[in-house]
């Protein structure tokens, strides 16, 4: 439990770093580290498939996409962020954590646990038989993503 809590705290810290750091490349890398930690948390919660997806896809592929975009767009060095943002963040963070903690404390034992029954079989049965429509949706979303990227990067005709 202590290790899990430490992992969760590190996850929040790296996510906050990803937002606070000025250098976008460093932000992208700390986001990847946060994904890695989340993947480890998933592994420790007996969800190896979700952990593998989180580490390989989110920590790997999305980081590569971010770094590619940062390289192609000159990292937006000309954008001037409001100066107060990074100063206000610690105050916001502490106030948010205190309020969050108080709300959780008041909620303790008040959310009813609904009756549940684990579905029979393993992950494969659940994914392929129980959540078939999800898979169809996933295929549709992937196709939509591919087509939209193709449409956005198509070469323009000369008369356009």
């Amino acid at each position, binding site marked *: 439990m202590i290790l899990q809590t430490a992992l969760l705290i590190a996850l929040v810290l790296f996510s*906050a770093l990803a937002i606070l750091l000025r250098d976008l490349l460093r932000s992208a890398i700390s986001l990847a580290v946060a994904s890695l930690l989340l993947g480890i948390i998933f592994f420790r919660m007996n969800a190896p498939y*979700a952990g593998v997806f989180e580490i390989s896809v989110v920590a790997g592929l999305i980081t590569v996409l971010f770094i590619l*975009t940062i390289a192609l*767009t000159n990292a937006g060095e000309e954008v001037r962020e*409001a100066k107060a943002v990074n100063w206000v963040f610690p105050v916001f963070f502490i106030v948010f954590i205190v309020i969050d903690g108080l709300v959780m404390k008041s909620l303790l034992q008040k959310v009813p646990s609904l009756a549940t029954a684990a579905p029979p079989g393993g992950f494969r049965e659940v994914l392929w038989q129980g959540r078939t429509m999800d898979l169809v949706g996933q295929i549709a979303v992937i196709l*939509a*993503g591919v087509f939209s*990227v193709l449409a*956005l990067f198509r070469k323009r005709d000369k008369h356009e």
Partner: protein
Amino acid sequence: MSNTWYLYLFFSAVLVGVGLYALLTKRNLIKLFIAIEVLAKGVSLLLLSTGFARGNVLVAQALVVTFIVVEVSLVATALALIINVYRHTKSLDVRKLAKLKG
């Protein structure tokens, strides 16, 4: 629900809160997208921890995998859009998007 679930709920709320703060205050488009990613991490953590607390981690896992696939598709499309915006306006400042005409 078990007490462990409240711990996960607490941390998911912190992640969502941090992501929302950055979404509201930052101006760089890539930074805004990093904020959306942080928010998505909070959501997927909450999904899986709820399944874990109810002893039904398999369905939660299937949902998280679906969520990650949707997330990747979203990231690819949005980053392509950001590159196109940069080519148009030569800037990643979100305020300049308000001045687009035609």
